[in-house]
């Protein structure tokens, strides 16, 4: 029983981790909570649905198209909404409200196009998974784990090892200082939106295969992604993945001990506990002596 919960928790957690990772990459540079990230995630799921069921292409195409479309949507939001606000030097409150508004617009656009009903990509009979150490693991779960670990490590390498990653860290540390040494912060922020949104789109696509899709799926996803990112340490790349796994496993143990209906409430309780006890999260990032 416990190993099964662990498997389920890690699978869900790695998807939370991917969403949190995208959120963290954006938060590091843009420095506000990008609520519309959840809607971008839903866009990824619906693109996968269209690609596979309407056009009959392979899941691999769906994987890339979901990422690319989500990246375009994310960059579009940045260019059309956030960048003008940044030029006006708007306070955070204005960013938050605008982001919330964008979230509602995209979510309802999806509902207008695809309808409010629950859709599913999976066709044919459900295959029984493999038995490993007393737990049942489906092929899809293995795929999700593999994909999210590769993407997670890739994102970490991108930020830690490349010149581009160095530039994003510079912008995260000190926007003015970065522009003084010839980095264009606007471009870095836009890139962060592209990469972060692509991750959300991919996470949405993977979820579409694992469970069902509906227009409001982004609401839960962004909530879990943000909570995962905070308990992992906001702005930290490995922290986002660890936070996601922690949240996924914690939720599944909670379901086992309490009841499935309380899943979201458990996640929220975990957040409140972390805010009280360790607000910097498991692997918080410090920028000049202050938690990011």
């Amino acid at each position, binding site marked *: 029983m416990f190993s099964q919960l662990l498997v389920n928790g890690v699978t869900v957690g790695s998807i939370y981790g991917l969403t949190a990772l995208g959120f963290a990459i954006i938060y590091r540079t843009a420095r*506000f*909570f990008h*609520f519309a990230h959840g809607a971008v995630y839903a866009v990824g799921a619906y693109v996968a649905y269209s690609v596979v069921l309407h056009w009959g292409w392979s899941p691999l195409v769906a994987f890339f198209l979901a990422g690319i479309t989500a990246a375009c949507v994310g960059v579009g939001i940045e260019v059309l*909404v956030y960048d*003008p*606000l940044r030029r006006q*030097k*708007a*306070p*955070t*409150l*204005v960013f*938050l*409200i*605008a982001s*919330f*508004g*964008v*979230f*509602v*617009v995209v*979510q*309802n*656009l999806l*509902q*207008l196009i695809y*309808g*409010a009903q629950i859709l599913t990509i999976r066709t044919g009979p459900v295959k029984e998974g493999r038995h490993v150490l007393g737990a049942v693991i489906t092929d899809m779960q293995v795929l999700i784990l593999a994909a999210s670990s590769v993407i997670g490590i890739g994102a970490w390498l991108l930020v830690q090892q490349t010149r581009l990653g160095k530039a994003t860290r510079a912008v995260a540390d000190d926007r003015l200082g970065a522009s003084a040494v010839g980095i264009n912060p606007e471009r870095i922020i836009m890139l962060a939106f592209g990469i972060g949104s692509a991750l959300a789109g991919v996470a949405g696509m993977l979820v579409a295969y694992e469970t069902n899709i509906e*227009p409001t799926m982004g*609401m*839960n996803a962004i*909530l879990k992604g*943000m*909570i995962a990112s*905070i308990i992992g340490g906001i702005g930290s790349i490995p922290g986002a993945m660890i936070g996601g796994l922690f949240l996924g496993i914690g939720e599944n143990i909670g379901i086992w001990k309490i*009841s499935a*209906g*309380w899943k*979201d*409430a458990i996640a*929220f309780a975990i*957040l*409140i506990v972390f*805010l*009280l006890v360790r*607000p910097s999260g498991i692997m918080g990032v410090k920028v000049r002596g202050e938690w990011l």
Partner: protein
Amino acid sequence: MEYFLHILVITGIYMILTLSLNLVLGYTGLANLGHAAFSCVGAYASSLLALNYGVPPWIGLLVGACTAAVLGVVVAAPSLRMKGDYLALATFGLGVIVYSVAKNWVGLTRGPMGLPGIPGFSLFGLQLSAVWSYLLLVTLFVALTFFVIRRVVTSPFGRILRGIREDETAALAMGKNVNRYKIIVFVVGAFFAGIAGSLYAHYITFIDPSSFTLMESITILLMVVFGGMGSLAGSFVGASVLVILPELLRFLGMPSSVAAPLRQMIYGLLLVILMLARPQGILGKYRWQ
């Protein structure tokens, strides 16, 4: 005529919600994205007390409002220790969670089936049932909310709130316990939202979780932003316009599967456009340097 009065009652309830959110969002600059959650708690608390224990709605209203206020402390106190974004996340989360608890805790709330047959208010043994009597009652509560909140924002206390909104560091430097002010304001906002929820429940006599979705919070948020953050007159305008306009659009006869998401999309779009072009709304003065 009945229908017209009904719309006025609903407008009044939204006015209470808008005024209280304006105190939190417009005057103090705290991002509360889940105001409907507090009215949900108020509505359920007072309805369940009335249905299960026969508690009169007057007391239920007070208990419901206090329950909402307590929930406000639980959410605001931990998240206000952090930057403003955390409060936005916590209230957003609260909106999602309160809805899911109302839907899933079937043993208590009857879940999606809702609570039917909630008793109405009674006065001196006389059951209030006519719509006009509720219009009077709600008007009374709108007036009460208005006077309390106007008293708060025009007092020295309110000046400190605006100070916090404009420059938190400066307010701290003046020796003000910024966090305490924020928590008080947040709790007052939650309290009035609880009152509004309870009024709604006893007026309609039926509640279910779908009346308190995230979309409700967005509607209230838009009413505040549209009317003007930091303008009490704006709250009246915002609530009136955004209750009456969709009612007029109802006569266009669109199928509800299109009308509902379209309306919500327009609301979201309005929020974004207002933030970009006129963040102070139509009557507000809120403008940053």
